[in-house]
Every structure is written in C-alpha cells, then in structure tokens.
C-alpha cells in the first residue's frame, strides 16, 4: 500500500506515461483492497447472524411443533402449526391455567416500577441538581453505591426480611426491590440531562413567585421528557425481565408473574417444551417491541451517564 502511494506521489515529476500506469496500478490495488475488505465484512456478518439467531430460531422452531414432535431428530419442524400459541392464549394446559392473570401481574409490576422510579428519580435529582440541597452529594454517592452492588447479593437477606414481615406473595415486595435497584441509574441520567436545562429558568420562575413544587411540575418535568422516556424504558424492561426476586418472593399461582411461571415449567419433569416456548415468545414480545421503539433514546441514555446492564 505505502509504496504504491509513494510512487503515485513521485510519478508526475518524471513523465506522463508512467504516471497513468501507476495510477492504474494504485486504483487496481485499491479495488482489490476494497473487495477483500467487503468479503471479510460479509464473512463477519454471516457469522454474526448465525451466532445471534440460533437460540432465537430454536425458540421459534420448538414453539411451532406439535406435542411429541419435540423429541425427534430434525432442524425444521416436521409439521409446523401454531397450535401451541392457541393453547397458551386460551389457557388450555394445566401449567397455564392462570396465564392471563400472571400476564396482568407482570404488567402491573412493570408499570408500578416504572412510575415509582420516574417519580422518586425526578424528585431526588430535582432537589439535588436544581435546588442544590446541602450535602446532596451524599445522596448521589448513596445512589452510586447502590448501582455497583450486585442485586443478587442481597437476595437472601431480602427474602428473609420479607418473610419476617409476611410480605411473601405480595407484589409490593418485588416492586420495592426493583425500584431500589433501578432508581440510582435514573438519578444519574436525570442529573446529567438536567445540566443541559439552564438554571436561570428556575430562578426566573422563583422570582415570579412559583413554589418549588410548581417549578418541578411545570418547568422541570416537561423539559426532562426525553430523559423520562429513556429511563422509563429502562425501568420497564428491567422490571419485566427480572427473574430472581420475582421467583423468590412470588410463589403462589395467583401472585406469580409470567417470568416465574416460565421458570416453573423448566423445573417440572415432563416439561411440554412447545407450550413453554410459545409462552416464552408471548412473554418476550412486549419488551422487544418496547426496546425497538425506544432504542435510540435508550442508547442516548446509556452513553449519557455511565452504563447499566
């Protein structure tokens, strides 16, 4: 590469004929280089697609099989049918008796977590970032500390505490945990985003006689809308996808969420795999749709204030 470039640079000084010659050579080598790089990219793309899609393909394949066909040698369903989806939607298997109720539990849980995370997160970051309360940095540090403690490490004490208070099978116990672990991220994002809103807005409203509550409600919240969407999506997905705490704290058929019900399938001896995968697909669709709808907002949030898986 480098030698051809040098040649091309020197060539016009000599004569015209070798110049076109070496230009031609350079162009050809550039073309070959581009062809190689495109071929490499195609190879990488193909590998990535196969690697990414195999487990997802497997879910879809198994969900399209009939009962019993699951246990045979094949790579495509021999006789595809959407029967198992219908069984799930009509609660037609004894594992799925309370499916819609459990779906409702998941929706309630995710909705409440999202609402509370947004509420507590904005109130805190308004007080610390906009009103500049004394020693607000202590709160930010507390949030940072919570953010870096692995949630699963507190599972055992939490489980026992909730049992002592008789809060087992109560969705609020799970909501409390998930709010605890999602709010720190919300506080970061809100503080970070809040910096882009001029503080003079608050000050002029205060001179006009607005109370802090009015400033929060009428000025701060509307201007924070993009950050609210980013954090709301994050909290919603976190609550919907979380498994460990829901599994520990919600064990009765009426209180459990879809995630717990799916996990219960796995632990049974004769799991009806096709129904299980159909349930898994129905369970996965809402978060996937949410993810792709708010994807750009979410990535903006991720790069704005650190990261969280």
């Amino acid at each position, binding site marked *: 590469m480098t030698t051809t470039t040098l040649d091309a640079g020197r060539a016009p000084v000599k004569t015209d004929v070798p110049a076109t010659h070496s230009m031609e050579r350079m162009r050809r080598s550039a073309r070959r280089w581009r062809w190689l790089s495109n071929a490499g990219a195609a190879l990488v793309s193909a590998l990535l697609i196969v690697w990414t899609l195999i*487990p997802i393909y497997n879910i879809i394949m198994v969900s399209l099989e009939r009962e019993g066909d699951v246990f045979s040698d094949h790579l495509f369903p021999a006789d595809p049918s959407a029967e198992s989806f219908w069984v799930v939607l009509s609660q037609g298997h004894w594992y799925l008796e309370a499916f819609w109720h459990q779906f409702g539990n998941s929706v309630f849980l995710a909705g409440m977590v999202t609402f509370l995370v947004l509420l507590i997160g904005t109130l*805190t970051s308004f007080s610390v970032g906009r009103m500049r309360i004394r020693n607000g940095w202590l709160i930010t540090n507390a949030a940072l500390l919570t953010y870096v403690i692995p949630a699963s490490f507190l599972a055992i004490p939490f489980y026992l505490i909730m049992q002592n208070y008789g809060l087992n099978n109560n969705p609020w116990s799970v909501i409390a945990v998930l709010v605890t672990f999602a*709010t720190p991220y919300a506080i970061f994002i809100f503080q970070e985003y809040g910096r882009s809103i001029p503080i003079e807005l608050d000050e002029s409203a205060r001179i006009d006689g607005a109370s802090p509550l009015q400033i929060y409600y009428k000025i701060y919240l509307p201007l924070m809308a993009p950050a609210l969407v980013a954090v709301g999506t994050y909290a919603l997905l976190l609550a919907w996808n979380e498994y460990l705490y829901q599994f520990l704290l919600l064990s009765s058929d009426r209180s459990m969420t879809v995630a717990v019900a799916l996990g219960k399938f796995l632990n049974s001896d004769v799991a009806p795999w096709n129904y299980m995968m159909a349930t898994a697909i129905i369970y996965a669709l809402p978060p996937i749709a949410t993810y792709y709808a708010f994807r750009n907002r979410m990535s903006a949030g991720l790069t704005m204030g650190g990261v969280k898986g």
Partner: protein
Amino acid sequence: MTTASLDLGRPASQRQSLWRYWRGGLQGSEFTWAVAFIVPYVAVFFAFVVYPVLYGLWMGSNPSLYAEVFSDPIYVNTVVNTIIFLVFGVNVKLFLALLLSGFFMRPGWWTKALLMIFVLPWAVPALPTFISIHWMLNGEWGLVNNALYILFGVDGPSWLNSRWLALGAAICSHVWKWTPFWTVILLAGRMSIPQEIYDAAKVDGATGLRRFLYVTFPLLANLYLVLTLLATIFLLGDFNSVYFVTGGGPANSTHLLATLGVVRDMLELGKPQLGVAAVMSALPLLIPLVIILMRKLRTAEVQL
C-alpha cells in the same frame, strides 16, 4: 468530545454566608421542599439497601460459619467456577465488543441493519433465550446435537452432563447475551472520537492496525477500563446464565457464588446463613472493585 462526568462536589456558587452554606443556599420553605423531595429516595435507600446489608452482615457474622463454608468441596468448586467465569466472561465479551464496535463503524445501510439484528440478544429477555439454550444443548433432542448429527454424522456429547462443557456453555451464553450491550457502548465511545484526529493521523501515515493502536485505543482506554470494572461487578452478581443454562448441575458442579447461596444453601439445604457466608466471601474482591469504580466514576471523567 462530550464528557459525561459525574460531578458530585458541591456547586461553587455556595460561598456566600455560613448560614446559606449550611442550608445549601436555600431559605425557609424552599429548604423544606427540598428535604421533602429527597425523603422518598432516602427512605428507599435505608429500608431496602442499608437494612438488608446490615441484616446480611449480622447473619454472616458468626465465624464458625466460615469454617463450614470453606470445608465444603462444592464451595471450593464454586470459587474456581466463579474465577473462570470472571476471567473468560468479562474479557472475551469486552474484547469482542471492542472489535465489533470497530466493525459497526463501517458506513452503509447494511451495517445499520446488521446492528439491529445483532442487538436482539440484549433486547430479548434473558429467560426465554437461556431456556432455549438449555434445550438446544440437550444431549438427545437438542438442536446442537441434531445439527452435528445431520450435517456431519457426529454424535455430540451431552453438553450439560460434564462440568467443563456445562460451564463453557454458561460462559458462551453469557457472552452471547451481553456482547451486544457492551458493543453499543463502545460504539458510542468510538463515534465520539472526532474525525479530525483520524485525519491528522492519516497525514502522519497511521492506517489500519497502527491507527487502532496509536489513536483509537488510547482514546478508548479509560472507558474500556471502567467498563471492565463494571462488567466484573455485574458478572459477579449474574444469576440467570448459570441458573437457566446449567441449573448448577451436574451435581452442583457449575454453581457461581450468587447461585450457590440462593439455590443450594437457602432453598435446597434450608441454611440461609451458609448462603450469606458464601456470598460474603466475595467481598474481598467486590469491595476494592467498588471503591476503584466509584473513584473512577466520580473523579476521572468517563470520556465517551
């Protein structure tokens, strides 16, 4: 270059009077409002972080517990598994993410479309895909062995019946699930490097590998370090990949500390104290990591 710093110090505008400093520059009812606004978070923090932490420390405060924990061969296996999982999981995932973020910088609609597909593992909840992987690895009816048999006529091993294959499968699943997440972050990091720097490097003759070694990587190094620390902490608390892919089996040989404490000690043996002690044995690793990370996030600006 945008700097996403977490500035936790007090604002500089508070140097007026001692009294105003004492209240953070707020007066009368405003101070009351400000306090009222932080009460919910402070309550959540004390009730659901401080209280469980203290409760856990109290549960794990009996020294004789640790003698029992350390003499348990399954615990020793678990520690080995956790270290292997940390070393391979974190580094493979982040190194792949670093390379792939470079790949996704290529221009064109195809790269964008591919990125949409590539982030699927992250967008799909962990539970369905990990269950799917568990079934794929079934020795008799799983997709992997079916494919091996149909395409190559080879009888595959029963993946989840050997400790090392099962642990490898759990690590691969973890990498599968989380590489897209870190790739997206590193991609954002790469995108924020100004084009002028590359142009200048090009004039100086830095292309290809040299461009990466002398321009891109030094600019990403701090971010990469912070991400490594974060990934280590997140992975230490990872429950799902082992729980669903291997279930801790065969014979409790593939547990991580997080799953051992909850699944075996608390639910199977009914000895939650033992579980807390097992989890607490990760503190000598976790606490330094947390301190370094908090300092990094606080003082050094995370340049994205």
